[in-house]
């Protein structure tokens, strides 16, 4: 087989894995958009905040150490203990639930019935706030996140493909784990929304706010629930991205990468988020390999996803699986 086909196959596999991670972030967007019509820009920062909190709890950092030191002149850094990864993840999940409650109480409650653009801006404001808050709470240095996930070259795939084609594929173990986790997460979410009482309420709210209210579903509870779930999804995404490239500010930028994924898939469709993520992941990697790097000077991954989504939307304005847009005067 010619080399370029093998490269392309390897890149496609890696693109699929990257796409799964994009889809993870996009999933949080879709959940919130469906349940409350809010386009939640803060999703990426939620992932960053979750990852920061996880590292902080795991290492036993003193929260706000920087601020306390600046105000009192002392030098606190760490508590004298470390917390096992699993417990730390549970604690972080609890923090995300508390955060969801606070967001609902302080922000969303007061913005009911506002225009979507105002809500969108509010989530950008929240993103700024959380970004600053996370840094003040845990420090802004680049942290490594290690919750015991396997990392590095998967030797089995490398050996097998070497025996088959004479060229070993490089697949990161972490990407495989991430894909498995993503599949589990989506399955769990689907089961939850199809078969549990809260899940049904969630779908009812997504269908029609007023009708849901009229049959006695508490909108506020649903919002807290859905922001908690989005926080949990953000935690998972934060763990995966954090293990891969360290916990730092750029983590919050994956939210921007999730936007074209959403556009491709449609804002209201969970399968759309996943398919969109895979298309974008594979598309940008293949484009970079075949056209970007040889002809355009590289780094096309920065914009390829957006341009693809833009071109795609011109032909299908509601995305792949979005609800058909019906406009009436």
């Amino acid at each position: 087989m010619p080399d370029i086909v093998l490269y392309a196959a390897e890149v496609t596999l890696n693109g699929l894995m990257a796409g799964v991670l994009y889809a993870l972030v996009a999933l949080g967007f879709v959940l919130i958009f469906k349940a409350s019509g809010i386009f939640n820009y803060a999703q990426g920062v939620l992932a960053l905040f979750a990852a920061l909190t996880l590292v902080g709890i795991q290492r036993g950092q003193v929260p706000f150490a920087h601020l306390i030191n600046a105000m009192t002149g002392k030098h606190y850094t760490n508590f004298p203990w470390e917390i096992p990864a699993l417990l730390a993840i549970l604690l972080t999940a609890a923090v995300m639930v508390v955060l969801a409650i606070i967001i609902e109480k302080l922000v969303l409650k007061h913005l009911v019935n506002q225009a979507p653009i105002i809500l969108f801006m509010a989530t950008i404001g929240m993103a700024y706030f959380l970004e600053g808050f996370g840094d003040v709470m845990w420090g802004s240095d680049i942290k490594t996140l290690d919750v015991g996930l396997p990392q590095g070259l998967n030797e089995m795939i490398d050996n097998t493909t070497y025996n088959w084609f004479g060229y070993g594929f490089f697949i990161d173990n972490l990407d495989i784990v991430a894909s498995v986790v993503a599949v589990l997460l989506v399955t769990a979410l689907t089961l939850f929304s199809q078969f549990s009482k809260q899940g049904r309420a969630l779908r009812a709210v997504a269908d029609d706010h007023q009708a849901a209210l009229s049959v006695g579903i508490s909108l506020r509870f649903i919002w807290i629930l859905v922001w908690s779930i989005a926080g949990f999804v953000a935690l998972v995404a934060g763990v995966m991205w954090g293990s891969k490239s360290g916990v730092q500010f750029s983590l919050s930028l994956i939210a921007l990468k999730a936007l074209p994924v959403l556009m491709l898939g449609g804002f209201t469709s969970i399968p759309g988020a996943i398919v969109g993520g895979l298309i974008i992941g594979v598309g940008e990697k293949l484009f970079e390999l075949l056209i970007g790097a040889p002809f355009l000077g590289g780094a096309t991954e920065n914009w390829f996803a957006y341009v693809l989504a833009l071109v795609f939307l011109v032909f299908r304005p509601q995305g792949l699986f979005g609800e058909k847009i019906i406009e009436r005067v």
Partner: protein
Amino acid sequence: MFYREAGDFKTSYGEDSQTFPIKFDRLRYFAVLAIAFGVVPLFINDYWANAVAVPFLIYAIAAIGLNILVGYAGQVSLGTGGFMAVGAYAVYKLMTAFPEVSIFIHVILAGGITAAVGVLFGLPSLRIKGFYLAVATLAAQFFLVWLFNKVPWFYNYSASGQINAPDRTIFGVFVTGAQTSAMAKYLFCLVMLTLVALVARNLTRGTVGRKWMAIRDMDIAAEIIGVNPLTTKLSAFAVSSFFIGIAGALFFAVYLGAAEVGEAFGIQKSFLILFMVIIGGLGSIFGSFAGAAFLVLLPVFLKNVLVGTLGWPTDLAAHIELMIVGGLIVVFLIAEPHGLAQLWRVAKEKLRLWPFPH
């Protein structure tokens, strides 16, 4: 007592359709112009010009531009940073290619080039609406920044990949380059802002502005009553990008002097200007000024308090500043979703009746 139309009789069509029909408004407007042109330049020094005045003037131009697109025509755009970069690189290429032409003309031409690019990226708005469009404009942001980074022609093959503004003069006074005085910078930007604001104000009062607002309120209904969505949306994109291009050109040539595209015109800039528009008030020229002033002054103020007075480390202060800006945006949206311009309108209503409110 002061602010009222009573007793202010119009005897000609010209008077009736003037920009500021109420006498108090008109006087205030001339007073502000007189102070801005006559008094401020006498006292301005380098610190005030670079930290407050020049960024305020330039951001106000950009905010007016974005406000036309988002506030008047209802097309949400997150590509402002990219369009500012077009203005900056256009003025750079023009300045280096035609050194004998006045910088003033270059800045206007840069606006024109940005308008053309804006129309190009505005074309999808005929099919894509709402948030889908907002995200689609991100394509402009990222693609343009990448383009200016990757194609050496745009930065004249300089080794650092930066663009540096050469020295240029107007009437023998330096307005770009290292020798520019604070006053020259300030006055140059002020002249541009005054022109832009006048054009914007009068465009939005007339036929064009009403078409934009009709499209904003409901584009299908507007189309049915005879507003052409193609020309209306594209003209909004063109005018808006024209102003944003001018802002980008000034931001690079007058304010920064040297720029690296990813840093100076990244996505953060798009959001910053969108914040100015939202906090100031959508669909209001005055709001653009107020929003720009607020978001330029706030960080300067916070930095002075936190670092200067309390003596905290700069990185901590930067994070707290992020928190406060983010928090304030949320508070603002909750308290007054129509922005500072709405507060101003309420104040004017009160003024009309004062001191006898019943």
